[in-house]
């Protein structure tokens, strides 16, 4: 019966393991002892900029704890409309926050624009291509086998990239070379790792410390694609949350602006 006893012991250990403190992501009391928890769903172009911004924000607001989840704006939108517990949504395309407002899931008055999005052609430092000299035609050079973009079905930067290819008349010749990242940060990773030869990614990622020194980029002129208009909104579950309001104010205020600007997120009037 020794085996049996061991089995029972393992079983009880498992039950005990499961009972151990559940993570309480839901608590929203803002007392001094328990900092208010804020969860942010953020578009992948914010990956590095928002990390830096949140460090600065939390230094000024020790009573608020912020965790961020990154993904393509479209898939975050689907998660939120299916009840994902986020407090603040930062989308690469204002259309998604607007849809959430229409669905009654986000607070109308809290919607805000924080920047214009810029699209760049990025190559690794060891690439023979010079996107600054070649412009869009760098993408159709014979040496280019794979071009990484974000998935245009649910990522705004992917849609903008496809629109830029179409306006340059290159889409048909590029179609077979495209590799799609789930979001624009994954597309950047594809080209940064050398798996793709060229990437069409967000300027904010090209300017991030992780990529800045590893490659060259050329900005695709804004008139080549419909504008990328990032924006955010506070979701209904956080409509009474002081922390979410403070974070929103910080992003549009001078503290957030100065960091966002360094990542190429210029506000519409700058």
């Amino acid at each position, binding site marked *: 019966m020794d085996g*049996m006893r061991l089995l029972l012991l*393992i079983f009880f250990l498992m*039950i005990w393991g499961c009972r151990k403190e559940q*993570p309480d992501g839901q608590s929203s009391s803002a007392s001094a002892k328990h900092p208010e928890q804020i969860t942010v769903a953020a578009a992948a172009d914010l990956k590095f900029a928002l990390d830096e911004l949140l460090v600065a924000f939390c230094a000024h607001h020790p009573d608020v704890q912020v965790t961020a*989840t*990154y993904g393509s704006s479209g898939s975050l939108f689907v998660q939120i409309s*299916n009840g*994902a517990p986020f407090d603040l949504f930062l989308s690469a395309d204002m259309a998604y926050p607007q849809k959430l407002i229409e669905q009654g899931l986000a607070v109308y008055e809290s919607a805000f624009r924080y920047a214009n999005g810029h699209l760049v052609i990025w190559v690794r430092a060891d690439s023979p291509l010079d996107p600054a000299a070649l412009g869009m035609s760098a993408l159709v050079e014979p040496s280019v086998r794979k071009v990484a973009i974000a998935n245009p079905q649910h990522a705004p930067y992917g849609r903008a990239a496809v629109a830029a290819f179409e306006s340059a008349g290159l889409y048909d010749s590029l179609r077979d070379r495209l590799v799609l990242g789930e*979001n624009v940060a994954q597309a950047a990773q594809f080209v940064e790792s050398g798996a793709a030869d060229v990437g069409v990614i967000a300027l904010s990622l090209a300017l991030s410390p992780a990529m800045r020194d590893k490659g060259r980029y050329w900005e695709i002129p804004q008139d080549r694609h419909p504008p990328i208009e990032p924006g955010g909104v506070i979701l209904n579950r956080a409509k009474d949350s002081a922390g979410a309001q403070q974070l929103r104010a910080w992003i549009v205020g001078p503290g957030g602006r100065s960091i966002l600007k360094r990542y190429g997120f210029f506000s519409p009037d700058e």
Partner: protein
Amino acid sequence: MDWPAVGLTVQLAFGTAAILLVLGLPVAYWLATTRRRFKFVIEALVALPILLPPTVLGFYLLLALGPRSPLGSMVLSWTGTAIPFSFTGILAASVVFNLPFAVRPFTSAFAAVNRRFLEASWCLGVSPTATFFRIALPLAWPGVLTGVVLSFAHAVGEFGVVLMVGGNIPGVTRTISLVVYDQVQALDYAAAHRTASVLLAFSFVVLCATFATQRRVLPI
């Protein structure tokens, strides 16, 4: 290492293995001992998560557990929280996709038990439940352990379903395999290496232990 994610993953894996031990043993015992003709249907249902793409499983679980489904809306009105994108959600998903990893080893272990012992026990007037606990389970025990260990390890490593049902929320549903995905996208290859190598070593050790137990190299 992202310790909150490690803690969360361990909780998820323990929870999955514990629930599957309770749910899987009766199903496996029934499959191993029944002589009903339609049992192949149940066998196929149990094995389905091995073949199903994680996206299909994730999509249907999201529909089945979401606030618009009967089950989801019932839980929502009782507890006030929706199942998807919560720890409960990924635990439920984890139990479903690990079903074959527990039930199949359990079933083959029970099937290997000599039926004469069970019949002798029944004929001596021992109840079927007592026979199960006193004869079948002790004899089948190495296989049961294999099933528990495999479902534990597989729960640690699952990615697609957890991403779809859990939504990658730090401290709530971001398990260790999602951390690797995020670290690669953040171009933090050093951190990704650290996390991935721990997972690699873990998986190898688990499989070694499993095979050693089956060959009776380890004295359990």
